[in-house]
């Protein structure tokens, strides 16, 4: 009895959490006038909405921009972040604790405070309307450092010492020894940084004005809020779908890693 209740609740939950996406998928293939109808299935499947999206806005370009920016940011956050995490976890040096607390502090200051000054800094460097403005300020990520540090701390000292005896420099130790042992943490940190950066919309709205360098979420936002969709709903939903698909794909691919490591590291946050 309890099981039936549990299952029906879970299925209801699935409907609630997944149906809107299903609806959006169907609606983007529907002829425009049918979208408001209750029946989710299209009477005929059409690519019209998608066609409008691709002709109205350079969404392919925006996708590439997002890929460029987010992959660079993620790689940078992981590389430099693990360097910092390694120094904080496994090396002894003066000021180590001070730096760690400083990094914690930076996580507390909301982006609100930094938004305007960061913008003027970027203007001063001449990085508006360029990928540099999107990448450079976010090349380091405190959350990634925290996650990696937590994982590095658990690596037995002996392994590192053995590598040192073999004559490895700290750099080689980090990338050849520590990294392979920390794959779950790297994946977790990587995914968190990736998703956060991919979905970021406020910063691109502020820094990028020219269509040439807009990121995908930014472009879809402006498409929906501005008049680009020519007053049609189908293209807006199609654009939103296109925006969501890469992330959903990546998520489904990595989800086992991600959910399990999120569960184990999440509590200590």
């Amino acid at each position, binding site marked *: 009895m309890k099981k039936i209740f549990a299952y029906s609740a879970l299925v209801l939950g699935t409907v609630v959490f997944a149906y809107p996406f299903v609806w959006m998928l169907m609606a983007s293939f529907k002829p425009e006038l049918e979208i408001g109808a209750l029946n989710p299935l299209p009477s005929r499947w059409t690519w019209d909405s998608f066609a409008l999206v691709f002709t109205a806005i350079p969404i392919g370009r925006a996708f590439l921009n997002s890929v460029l920016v987010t992959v660079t940011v993620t790689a940078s956050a992981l590389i430099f972040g693990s360097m910092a995490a390694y120094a904080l976890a496994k090396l002894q040096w003066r000021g180590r604790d001070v730096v760690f607390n400083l990094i914690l502090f930076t996580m507390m200051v909301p982006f609100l405070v930094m938004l305007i000054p960061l913008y003027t800094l970027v203007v*001063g460097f001449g990085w508006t309307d360029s990928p540099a403005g999107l990448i450079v300020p976010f090349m380091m990520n405190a959350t990634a450092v925290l996650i990696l540090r937590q994982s590095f701390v658990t690596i037995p000292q002996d392994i590192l010492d053995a590598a040192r005896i073999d004559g490895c420099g700290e750099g080689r130790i980090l990338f050849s020894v520590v990294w392979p042992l920390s794959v779950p943490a790297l994946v977790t940190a990587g995914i968190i940084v990736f998703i956060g950066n991919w979905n970021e919309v406020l910063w691109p709205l502020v820094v990028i004005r020219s*269509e040439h360098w807009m990121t995908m979420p930014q472009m879809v936002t402006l498409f929906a809020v501005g008049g680009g969709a*020519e007053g049609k709903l189908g293209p807006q939903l199609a654009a939103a779908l296109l925006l969501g698909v890469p992330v959903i794909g990546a998520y489904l691919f990595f989800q086992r890693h991600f959910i399990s490591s999120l569960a184990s590291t999440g509590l200590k946050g």
Partner: protein
Amino acid sequence: MMAAHRRNILLALQGACVLLIASCDPAPPVEVMGEGDVVHLTYWCAQNPQERALATQLVETWNAANPDVQVQVQPLPAGQSSEEVLIAAIVAGTTPDLSSNIWPGIISDFIRADGVYPLSSFPDFDSLMMSRVPADLLARFRAPDGIYYQIPWKTNPIMLLYNQQLFREAGIEQLPRTYSEFMAAAARLTRDLDGDGHMDQWAGYRRTHPIWHERRFDYYALYIGASGGKTLFDEGQVRIDTAASTKVFSFFRDVYAHHYFPLTTFQTSPILSGKVATEFTGPWQIGWLDENAPPGFEYGFTPLPVPDDYEGPAYTFGDYKNIVIFSNTRHPEEAWRFAKFLVSREADLQLLETTKQIPVRQGLLTDSLYAGFFARNPKVRPFAEVALYTRGEDGVSSLQEILDAIAQQFEAAAVYRVYSPEEATRRALARIRLIHEWNS
């Protein structure tokens, strides 16, 4: 990684950086051209396809006739708004020689940044303008320092678009002219088609989000009509016709109280799908409707409603786009020659043909050059008739904030009816004064 030395200097110069750019000498040396040297100009036009086509045609004509001055046209970098793009270009020093997509409301910011060239310094400015633009309209584009920095190029007057079939079905024989007539028509146009107790068709629709630019086409347009052609400022001072303002708020209040306009956000075009019978819009809509309307969609245009006791010509809001020459230009004389070409009789005809938008030119309907166009495009006629009775926004700084204040009052008094129209006018006036004070 930066060396500490360079980083310190960078930090020290950071704040001054933009300051330096902004205070840079705005008039770079004019190149002295020798005989046979070709001058190259860059010209930015608007992003939309019609204006790009127009610009390409005009530039081709010019380049063929003027081998010594070759113009390269580029659409304004598409982005959130062309105003931001232009300001950014001014700050960064990357402006073109001239552009024709300038919203008059942003001119004051351009002037403050020393970004635009004083056009009235050209000797033939006055004679050119007088032959094209009526004096009272032209005066509205003069900057507070008495100099003209912009040429009025084209305008999009706002009128009432109506669905002829829906009007026929509702039994409306005469087009509404006054507020009461509009109300009467609206009552007939708002109908419950499928008997579910809920309206399915409405008289009209306005997006009720309190965004500053939405109110240009409803409150502001009707205010200009109700006040007989006044705007919000006069000679740099706040001067609102409060009676007119209250009448406009009252009008919309009645509209929303009777639910003649729905309180929702349509994500699709309601006029196309037949959900609403009218729309406040401009001539750009003609091209769009021709492309996107379902077959058999019949529509017409009529002037915006005016207060019942109003007498006089029908004024309305004109969404102007003007031409400026940027102060960064190295060839002001040549840029001026090209600008003159852009507002010549022939270019204005091209403007009509390609974009169906109205050049700011007197005598459009009497000049035989344009007769053929209006014969073929009767729907554009009403706009040309009203073009010289339009008013744009005042060229004051912080215009967006002022319109935002109005949008707030509109929402409060008309849409949600939290207080009276008189109160709304009073509060709008108070806030506009405050904003003007803060920002001057």
